[in-house]
């Protein structure tokens, strides 16, 4: 039997030492699977959605395999009410959604030290199927949305 690294042992115990949130304990059913990873992070497949009262309204997509990595997310609905597009059928299938409106839409935020410089990626949103706990980052090829829309534009 191969020796386990400390990290492997911790994952088996469903416990990770994160960069931002300290030690996180989780259940198997908390794990969100990204079957293809995210662009640039193709080897990371298992994530947690971390919500913290002190960080509202942001949610964080926390990598389990690489605990120092997390992505700030925001639900674009309130900030960008005009944000509308159709989820391509292949992604509906990949996520196992019975209907597209069952998917939860998040957009990845790039935080900067100055609030005015924070941006949000409206061009490649993250869609989560909460019932199957799967997520895919979709690239909206035909859209004119930006990857670096100012987050405070409308706030």
């Amino acid at each position, binding site marked *: 039997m191969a020796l386990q690294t400390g990290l492997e042992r911790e994952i088996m115990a469903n416990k990770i030492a994160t960069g931002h949130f300290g030690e996180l304990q989780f259940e198997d059913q908390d794990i969100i699977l990204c079957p293809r990873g995210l662009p640039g992070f193709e080897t990371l497949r298992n994530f947690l959605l971390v919500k913290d009262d002190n960080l509202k*309204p942001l949610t964080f997509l926390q990598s389990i395999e690489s605990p120092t990595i997390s992505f700030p997310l925001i639900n674009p609905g309130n900030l960008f009410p005009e944000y509308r597009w159709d989820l*391509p059928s292949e992604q509906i299938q990949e996520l196992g959604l019975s209907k597209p409106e069952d998917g939860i839409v998040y957009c990845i935020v790039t935080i900067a030290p100055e609030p005015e410089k*924070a941006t949000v990626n409206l061009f490649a949103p993250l869609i989560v199927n909460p019932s199957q706990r799967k997520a895919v980052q979709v690239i909206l090829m035909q859209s004119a949305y930006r990857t670096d829309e100012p987050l405070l534009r409308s706030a």
Partner: protein
Amino acid sequence: MLVFTRKIGECLMIGDNVQVKVLSADRDHVRIGISAPREIPIHRQEIYDVIVERNKQASLSVTPPKDLLARLKI
């Protein structure tokens, strides 16, 4: 890198189900048609690279400044 010379109208097969066809070519541009199963994502490299770069920057994000969070709460 595997390199092929193809005439206009000629194709390459990648695996069993991806076909790449050269549609036309002039000095600076090559038009390429790809037939592939819908579940295989196909992107222009430069667009994919932008997403990669954005994701990397987002993953390095600092702790959000308190006034940013306050201004996001509507």
